[in-house]
């Protein structure tokens, strides 16, 4: 085939999904000429599964992406049709924002953001080959024969690599949502010595709302008081007062389960014709029914795909049963008796890499300039993908500038937990973020993502001056108000005690500091306004920070101590040049695992499976000894 040389770019991003977008925008915004290759221009920023962004722990990720200067939160704020703060009855650490998104609008909005980015080109072409020179990426080749030179590549192929859709006995090569799969790049990766494995995920059917009886379902509305993902939109009244669309809740029943049991032999997941490893976190309906046989019903959430469409997403009914069985079993569900499918449920298998081959900055350790992000790394979820894309994009740009990798550790961000889990422990199934994966949940709140990460994003160069000055301003307001609350004395008068009594709180006999009162569960910052006359007018986000930081001061201190302990081992750095075969005293397994993964700190080494505490002590001794020799 004829090849021709086209342009040279600094960074090439393969894939235009949620990982690819963040990677491409980050690289371009850091001044690198960037090309983002997509299989289909109309599938950029597609949501082939549920039409929502955020949710427990994923909402945290979006806020963190935003604080670092990423795009996802800003775009989601523009395109939501419903917004809800989950867990709002629980502690602030686990509040999580989730928004239903108009997926076509999101696609269009994101595409335009990408188009408008100075240094970025979007190109519809299938990348079929990655070429290296020495140990470094050199260029890529498209199916049409175009060669693009590049200094760094971010591979963000999602579920497209050798994508195979399975619906019952039917299976065919396909990417998600009927887009072509990328069948040739896998071989190129194998040629580079990169091992591949098969992962699997799935999605439910889409149904036209006019064939559903919504009156048989429970209405699920959004919040009245909407909050934004992006810290830039905190006070954007117009955006946050948009009309919302409802979701609906219905349930499976014994009929549904009977239908599944009668046809389970036709499920490729159960008869063995799918080999990919599927996620425990979002099992298919047949999986749920078979594994939890005594559960009488399963929840089914009906989510609109957008503002201007009658297409509804049937969350909870993902399936790889034959289409005719799907249709029968969907019809057993109240409200869906006469439903007609617009798109069928399917399972999809795809190639993924072993994520332990990556550095904490998501660089493939054996090849310079090669980065991986998103589902190809074994994760699942748009937010997980976007988070990785952002980090990979930043580091692709930094490598070109000879700057050290930008990484976040487990005590700094959910992004840090996500990447450390993937890279250090690896995963044998599509990995989903969960708040329980974080050791320092009380510190890694979604409300303080900006306080945790804006400085870092600014140092990297992704945070705009506008965002940064707003942040500095907010931070000052919080600090000032914290000081004021700590020093303000609330008098023990009738007025005060009447208020306390009305809140169900015990009265005070002596003047008490406002900060002390705020520590009581039933007393809040907002409900003490009447006894605190010197209180300044402050934005909601500032009031919220003050309240949380005062109320949870004790726990925050405790957690900070845990973090300090954790940091000690993280700060003991290990060179990637160390040959662990040469370290006397390490167990055989540890030598192999450490040589394979080359951790960058003793802390990271301690989280590698197969590395024992005894091995860690040997490493510490080795470090002390080698440190001495150098001196």
């Amino acid at each position, binding site marked *: 085939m004829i090849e021709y040389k086209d342009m040279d770019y600094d960074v090439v991003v393969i894939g235009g999904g949620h990982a690819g977008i963040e990677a491409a925008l980050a690289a371009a915004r850091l001044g690198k000429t960037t090309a983002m290759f997509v299989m289909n221009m109309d599938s950029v920023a597609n949501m082939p599964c549920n039409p929502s962004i955020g949710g427990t722990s994923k909402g945290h990720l979006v806020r963190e992406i935003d604080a670092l200067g990423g795009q996802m939160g800003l775009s989601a704020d523009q395109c939501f049709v419903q917004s809800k703060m989950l867990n709002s009855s629980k502690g602030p*650490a686990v509040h999580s924002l989730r928004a239903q998104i108009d997926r076509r609008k999101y696609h269009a909005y994101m595409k335009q953001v990408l188009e408008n980015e100075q240094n970025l080109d979007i190109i519809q072409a299938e990348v079929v080959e990655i070429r290296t020179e020495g140990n470094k990426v050199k260029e890529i080749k498209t199916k049409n024969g175009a060669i693009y030179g590049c200094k760094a590549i971010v591979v963000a192929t999602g579920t497209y690599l050798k994508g195979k859709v399975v619906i019952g006995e039917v299976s065919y090569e396909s990417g998600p949502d009927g887009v072509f799969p990328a069948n040739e790049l896998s071989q190129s990766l194998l040629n580079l010595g990169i091992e591949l494995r098969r992962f699997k995920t799935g999605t439910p059917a889409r149904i036209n709302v006019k064939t559903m009886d919504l009156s048989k379902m429970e209405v699920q509305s959004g919040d009245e008081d909407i909050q934004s993902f992006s810290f830039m939109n905190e006070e954007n009244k117009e955006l946050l007062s948009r009309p919302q669309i409802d979701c609906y809740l219905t349930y499976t029943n014994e009929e549904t389960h009977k239908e599944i049991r009668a046809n389970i032999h036709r499920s490729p997941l159960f008869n063995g014709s799918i080999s990919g490893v599927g996620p425990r976190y979002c099992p298919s309906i047949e999986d749920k029914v078979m594994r939890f046989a005594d559960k009488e019903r399963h929840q089914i959430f009906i989510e609109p795909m957008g503002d201007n469409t009658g297409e509804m997403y049937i969350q909870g009914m993902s399936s790889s049963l034959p289409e005719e069985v799907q249709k029968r079993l969907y019809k057993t569900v109240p409200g869906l008796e006469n439903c007609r499918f617009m798109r069928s449920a399917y399972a999809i298998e795809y190639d993924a890499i072993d994520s332990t081959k990556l550095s904490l900055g998501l660089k493939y350790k054996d090849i310079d300039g090669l980065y991986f992000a998103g589902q190809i790394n074994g994760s699942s979820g748009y937010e997980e993908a976007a988070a990785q894309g952002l980090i990979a994009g930043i580091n692709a740009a930094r490598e070109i500038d000879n700057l050290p990798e930008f990484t976040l550790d487990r005590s700094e961000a959910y992004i840090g937990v996500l990447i450390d889990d993937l890279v250090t422990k690896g995963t044998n199934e599509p990995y989903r973020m969960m*708040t329980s994966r974080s*050791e320092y949940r009380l510190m890694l709140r979604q409300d303080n993502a900006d306080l945790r990460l804006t400085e870092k994003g600014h140092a990297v160069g992704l945070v705009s001056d506008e965002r940064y000055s707003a942040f500095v301003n907010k931070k000052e307001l919080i600090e000032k108000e914290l000081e004021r609350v700590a020093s303000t004395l609330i008098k023990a008068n009738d007025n005060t005690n009447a208020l306390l009594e009305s809140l169900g709180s015990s009265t005070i006999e002596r003047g008490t500091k406002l900060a002390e009162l705020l520590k009581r569960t039933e007393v809040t910052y907002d409900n003490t306004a009447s006894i605190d006359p010197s209180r300044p007018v402050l934005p909601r986000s500032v009031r919220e920070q003050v309240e949380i930081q005062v109320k949870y001061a004790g726990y925050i201190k405790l*957690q900070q101590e845990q973090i300090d302990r954790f940091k000690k081992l993280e700060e003991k750095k290990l060179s990637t040049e160390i040959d662990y075969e040469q370290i006397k005293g390490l167990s055989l397994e540890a030598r192999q695992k450490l040589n394979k993964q080359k951790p960058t700190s003793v802390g990271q080494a*301690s989280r590698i499976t197969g590395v024992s*505490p*005894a091995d860690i002590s040997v490493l510490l001794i080795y470090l002390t000894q080698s440190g001495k020799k150098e001196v």
Partner: protein
Amino acid sequence: MLTETIAAISTGGTSSGINIIRISGEKALEIVSKIFTNYAKLDHQKIIYGKIINNNTSTIVDEVLVSCFKAPHSFTGEDVCEINCHGGRKVTLEILKLVIDNGARIAEPGEFSKRAFLNGKMDLSKAEAIIDVINAKTSAQAKVAVNQLSGGIYDKVETVRDMLVTLMAEIEVSIDYPEYDYEEITINKLTERLDLIKKEIDLLIKTHNDGKYIKNGINLAIVGNTNVGKSSLLNTLLNEEKAIVTDIEGTTRDVIEETLIIGNLVLNVSDTAGIRETDDVVEAIGVNKSLKAIDDTDMIIYLIDLSRGLNTRDIELLEKIKGQNKPYIIGLNKVDISREKIEDVKSQLGNHKNIICISSKTGEGIVELKDTIEEIFNISNIDSEESRIIVNERHKDLLEKARNSVIKAKEIAEMGESLDVAAIDIKEATEMLGNITGKNASSDVVNKIFEKFCLGK
């Protein structure tokens, strides 16, 4: 971790007139300042005489010598104080407790050495020797498990940990999947389950008292009339075992006692004054002494000179011993010269059990005596079926921390805080128990490393 101040009794193994409590870490001097009268004089590389006082009870605990080594010029490279006290397990433990109460924690086995390494205070050869021991530990993990944590206790701790993990999972599911129709655990259910868990942990902590038999040894008194051969029995027992009467991990014992190992048991054997037969006053003292020995000890060997037979005092004392419900063995000594009297004496002893004919001189019956001691402690006093005994101070410490976290979680739940806040302490408790069984993914694994090492060496 490394910033915590640690303390332990650093003498041990053989009996000595002095015990040393070593304290290492940032707070070492601060702690000593709170309990040592002559703190003002203390300085680097000085040894100062003074008194240890318990400020809570305003009592003097002991007269001691305290030495001080300031970082980095100390064994561990940190601030180190050593309190030299007058032996005696009770006093030593009381001082250690004061040190702990004032901010130190019990050192883990080998932790002083570990700190020495990490602070670059050991040379390569020593370091390599330690590496070898670490490896020995790794390959002999099963053995360590037997030594440190019997199978029964391991299972028990794991069971309790599993209860916590299950509870965690139930809380977490409601956090990570708030909209799903899993029943959220109620405050009542939560506190109920935490109570149950606390009870289980309490039971485990209680076994520490049984465990002290193993850790600190069983106090065994040899009682009997003068010249029945008590001392020679002691010597016979000791002579045979002397070779292994050393290096018991973390054991501390009273200076006046001799230490003896039989099977898995460590015995602190004391030789009591014999009972005088003539002078009334002295006789009374003798009897009192013997009675006191009987009160204080865990087990008694009552020795009778078979050639002389029983007297009325023997009968009286044996009845008293029997009434105390303590294990005892009646040794009929000098069987080699008076075998013909066995039946007669045995019939006089009536329904007393564990009667063994021995000869300190020829060694006859000594094996049977030891077997009986072992049998008594393995079968009656220690729940051998489950072996639920917490032996290790560190394990006890972790259990107590776990219990405190469980209590705190319960308080938080009762205060009306949300589940995710209570979860912090539940997780902490889980990690503490995981540190006992070695089953945790927490990052501060290093604290568990040098377990194999002797405490305070």
